[in-house]
């Protein structure tokens, strides 16, 4: 760590805004981590609503048996784009936005390591999103092969598939650049005295997530490039008639796809590990084992990809290997859950909205984890693969997991971002509304899957009607809750909300971002925080 010379004019107001543009140019040329974080968060929220509308189209069609609203081709396009948009457009950029905002603040750095590249990482995303949306109106429509884009079905599609492949390439480049920035920032720009083991948990999970991204995004790029050359340049990677192997695609895809699940889950673990100690007024239990557990989950995530492929006809030994490896992930994940509960145990808990979302996360993510254990058992998975049980399972981990933790993070840090408090009652309404609607939507899907309803079908046998109608009603309620969040929580807060936020709105929060005023000034930590401050906060969090 370099020695830092304390700047004599550090005390002067950072918000002079003497050297940065305003208006539209401020956002287009943004290199400030806070501006870029804001851009990411708004982009992801817009994509979340877009993907959500597609989900509601799906649920509308499935409300009742028979095709009432959409032809099967369009239905398949909705399911495909809903998945792609939610994964690459909503959840991943939202976490990148959080990391952009929080990491420099939490480690005492002035900005991200590569500020100009940071701008590019963000501005690659809107064109990619545009390509995906345009694909709906090109001949043949958008990609309709599922978000996994399995070959050889993917080679049959029209030019919508090419646009999707291009969009995935762009989003992949964006992710990799973002990840490089995060790794470099965390490894090189921590405040004096902040060793890795004194770093807040959210920074740890961000670091590990960034490594996962760098490792697997090129794999996805490779997979879709092979589809592209199969489609247009006469290669036969996945075309059996030309000597290719359709199952190869699945191996390559899931070698990306399984770690991808953790790319969406690990930052959520980080958020919850910040929020629960703050509202339990107790240090995070087992910080060290949390770090080790997160790392082991990341490493194990590379060894279990074929559990998505039990029905492709693997040899028994391979099935058993992947079954054991998959079950093993339950151990470190369990450790994390136990640690969160031990953090709450004997605490002095209050239940503001961020805490409610964090507890909601722990409950529902654990529930999703349990159905994950059921699915890990190859023999049972044979029955449940590609049914609504799987849909229920991954929505429990991705909506109740990633999305709920994102809401928790937004409520937790919003006062720091905009300088205003949100309305607590409305926040709680948003939580309970989302919580109930979510369960009405996805809980019945377990039963549908067990009873034999395949996923990705636009129409179904009459015996599945009741649970589908229930799920559709829940989905619309869930969607409405997010509109409520936008218009009754978020926008009012940005316009002043429930008053100015104090520097430290949460009694039990002891990380560096709470040492700067609310809202955080445009430039923070131009001079790093003192070693004494870092040590004092680490002591409060019992980090050593």
């Amino acid at each position, binding site marked *: 760590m370099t020695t830092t010379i304390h700047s004599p004019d550090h005390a002067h107001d950072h918000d002079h805004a003497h050297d940065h543009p305003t208006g539209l140019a401020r956002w287009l040329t943004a290199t400030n981590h806070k501006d870029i974080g804001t851009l990411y968060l708004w982009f992801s929220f817009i994509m979340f609503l877009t993907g959500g509308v597609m989900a509601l189209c799906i649920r*509308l069609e499935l*409300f*009742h*048996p*028979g095709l*009432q*609203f959409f*032809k099967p*081709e369009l239905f398949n396009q909705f399911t495909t784009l809903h998945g792609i948009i939610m994964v690459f457009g909503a959840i991943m950029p939202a976490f990148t936005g959080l990391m952009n905002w929080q990491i420099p603040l939490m480690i005492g750095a002035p900005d991200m390591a590569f500020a100009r590249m940071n701008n590019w990482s963000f501005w690659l995303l809107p064109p990619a999103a545009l390509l995906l949306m345009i694909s709906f109106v090109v001949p043949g*429509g958008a990609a*309709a*092969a599922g978000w996994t884009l*399995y070959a*050889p*079905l993917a080679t049959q*599609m*029209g030019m919508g598939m090419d646009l999707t492949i291009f969009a995935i390439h762009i989003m992949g480049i964006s992710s990799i650049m973002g990840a490089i920035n995060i790794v470099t920032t965390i490894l090189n720009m921590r405040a004096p005295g902040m060793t890795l083991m004194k770093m807040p948990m959210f920074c740890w999970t961000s670091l590990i997530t960034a490594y996962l991204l760098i490792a697997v995004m090129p794999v996805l790029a490779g997979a879709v490039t092979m589809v592209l050359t199969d489609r247009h340049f006469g290669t036969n990677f996945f075309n*059996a008639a030309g000597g290719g192997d*359709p199952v190869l695609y699945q191996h390559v895809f899931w070698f990306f796809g399984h770690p991808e699940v953790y790319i969406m889950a690990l930052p959520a673990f980080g958020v919850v590990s910040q929020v629960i100690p703050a509202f339990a*007024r*107790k*240090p995070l*239990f*087992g910080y060290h084992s949390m770090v080790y557990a997160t790392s082991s989950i990341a490493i194990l995530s590379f060894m279990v990809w074929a559990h998505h492929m039990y*029905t492709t006809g693997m040899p*028994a030994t391979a*099935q*058993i290997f992947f*079954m054991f490896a998959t*079950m*093993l992930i339950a151990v470190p994940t369990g*450790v994390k859950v136990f640690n969160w509960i031990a*953090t709450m*145990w*004997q605490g*002095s808990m*209050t*239940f503001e909205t961020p805490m409610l979302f964090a507890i909601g996360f722990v*409950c529902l993510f*654990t*529930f999703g984890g*349990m159905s994950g*254990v059921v699915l890990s*058992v*190859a*023999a*049972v998975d*044979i*029955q449940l693969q*590609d049914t609504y049980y799987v849909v229920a399972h991954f929505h429990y981990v991705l909506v109740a997991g990633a999305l709920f933790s994102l809401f928790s993070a937004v409520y937790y840090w919003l006062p720091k971002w905009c300088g205003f408090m949100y309305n607590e009652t409305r926040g709680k309404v948003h939580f309970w509304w989302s919580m109930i609607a979510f369960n009405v939507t996805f809980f019945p899907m377990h*039963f549908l899957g*067990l*009873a034999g309803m*395949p996923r990705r079908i636009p*129409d179904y*046998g*009459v015996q599945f*009607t*009741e649970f589908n*109608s229930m799920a559709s009603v829940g989905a619309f309620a869930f969607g409405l809750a997010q509109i409520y969040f936008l218009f009754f929580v978020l926008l009012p807060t940005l316009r002043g909300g429930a008053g100015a936020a104090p520097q430290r709105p949460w009694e039990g929060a002891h990380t560096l971002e709470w040492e700067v005023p609310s809202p955080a000034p445009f430039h923070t930590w131009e001079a790093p925080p003192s070693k004494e401050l870092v040590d004092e906060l680490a002591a409060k969090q019992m980090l050593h």
Partner: protein
Amino acid sequence: MKNRVSRSLAGLSAAVSLSAFADYQLNLQTPVTKVAQDVYDLHTLLLYICGGIFVVVFGVMFYSIFKHRKAAGHKAVNFHESTTVELIWTIIPALILVAMAWPATRVVLEQKDTSGADMTIKVTGYQWKWGYDYLDEGVSFHSRLVTPQVQYENFGGEKPVRNENYLLEVDNPVVVPVGKRVRLLLTANDVIHAWWVPAFSVKQDAIPGFIRDTWFKADKEGVYRGQCVELCGKDHGFMPIVVHVVSDEKYKVWVDEQKKKMAANQDDPNKVWTMPDMMARGQKVYEANCAVCHKSDGKGQGAFPALDGSKMASDKAQKADHIAMVLVGKNAMPSWSKTLSDTELAAVITYERNAWGNKTGDLLQPAEIKAARK
């Protein structure tokens, strides 16, 4: 739009009123094979274990939430680490997993053991139907959805009456004898499909270019239904599977019937056809195979081009291209060279070139297709 809204409201009220005798199935379908029974029991075991863990873990959490709240005056205690506790809650879950993995491994080995089969059926996935070849009996047929289109495609139409097995009924079901080990060989013609009958706990992807196998031995006579479960394009949701498990005698009768039917359907490849016969035959083939995408009136839909008035089907000069397209396929258009006989191909191409507004006058003979195949 108003119509749609009112229709969905009507649907809502129908759903509410029907719920009195609704079908709320909460668990796996009743197993009829030993493997399915084992899977059922395994799932129940997992459910109990996971349920137990859930209750214990969340019991602790909610106790803490109620007792250790600031509002109740609880002061935070400052413990934050305990290696002993961490070891315990690493080792115990690991042991629980071993307890799950043990029976699970046994069932996996049982599922994967396809030896000692009494009979073998080759299953081929097509967009969008199933082909079955009884390798021992020499019986072959295709199996398609028979639920009438009016029952599922109701964009703005009257509310149809749906039968009990809506979307789960086929023209030619698979028939197998009860209590026999049936080995299935699976492959596909175009994209990946998956053959699933929940009551047998058989689910296996059918992959183009590869042969995979699985097996079942049904212990009870009856009709069992399943569906394709791998997204395979437009009609993925309309690819049901129906298996009739019958007594040995009934099975033998069925095999004889099938053989007679196949003999009756055999075409003489050297026969020279007249235009009216060929058109009639072609229409049948078209309705059964092509209408699902290109529509009965040849107008096409979505990504599927219209044939009525298309250059390929109405220009005399493009006859060879037309034949090649049907034989080889392109993008979502599958190759029909293996699924249809020379006579059927000649018939359907003749039909397409002379039906609706197309008036080429071309009459194809089976011999011409045979030549084009080379």
